């Protein structure tokens, strides 16, 4: 289960940061997940819910922002979003430039799995 290992790394990193910052509770965590990662955000959320049970992260609001794909075409220099076609797997479009239809394209964005920020609560003494 791919999502489980990612969720595990994310929960660990968050609890670690919270501990270093003397948090007594985590209120919110914001993530960025690229469209092209082989990660399903709903499964990721579910796995995190299982893993954070019984921790100070348990009741935090989880926000997952999906990062759209951006490509650069080697041939015409086009930089931007890909075109999605309902008839093909959306990932297949990473292969073709929407401008010149060339298939030599580089992926600039969409492969991230990023923990952006967390909001924590601290005791007054530790603030």
């Amino acid at each position: 289960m791919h999502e489980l290992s990612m969720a595990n790394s994310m929960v660990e990193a968050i609890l670690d940061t919270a501990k270093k910052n003397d948090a007594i509770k985590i209120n919110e965590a914001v993530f960025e997940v690229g469209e092209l990662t082989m990660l399903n955000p709903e499964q990721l959320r579910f796995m995190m819910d299982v893993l954070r049970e019984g921790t100070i992260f348990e009741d935090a609001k989880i926000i997952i922002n999906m990062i759209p794909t951006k490509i650069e075409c080697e041939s015409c220099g086009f930089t931007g979003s890909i075109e999605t076609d309902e008839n093909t797997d959306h990932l297949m479009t990473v292969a073709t430039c929407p401008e010149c239809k060339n298939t030599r394209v580089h992926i600039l964005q969409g492969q991230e799995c990023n923990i952006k920020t967390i909001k924590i609560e601290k005791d007054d003494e530790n603030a």
Partner: protein
Amino acid sequence: MHNVASIEIEQDIIQANDKLAYDNRTKFDEKGVFAVDLVGAVGSGKTSLLEKLIDEMDDDIGVIAGDILSKFDAKRIEDKNVPVKGLNTGKECHLDAHLIEHALPDVPLDDISILFIENVGNLICPADFNLGAHVRTVIISVTEGDDTAEKHPMIFKGADMAIVNKVDLADAVGADADKMVKDIKTINPDIPVVKCSLKTGEGVQEIIDLYKKFQEQ
């Protein structure tokens, strides 16, 4: 009354793996070992290909055989009398750089020139995880269906060479091997693709020549 603070973490889990992969690559380079990450679905022919390569290649080969639970693949390689480290992921569907790092002390890097890392049978999850190998080979077989490449573009986008295996069975299963080659080339125009049958031996020498070429680069 508690104080609330917002903390920037900005930690990319995939990049964290890439950093470990870089460390693995450094280790391979220091030891002069050429490392290959071999990915493919369950039953695509990864282990059979390795058995064939061990028989046919002149190099000193070592293998890390990734598997979810069993030791079957490691045992098959062991029977070929080459050093093999079985690596069970337990529940994970892919190998990652961290697992490889932990397996490396059990691999005699001083005695081998090529290390094949047989990934867990899967075309999806391994796409996100760089292991630090010099070359990633994707092997798919005609029996998986000739739409396999277009259904899994990301694994081909990040690969360095591809093998379409079991071409001797194409007619029997109604698959078009040339379509599979064409799809792979659409996804990744520069990738060398070999049509192969481990049963008849077709394509095996071509695969060996490709590895030699990569090794010299």
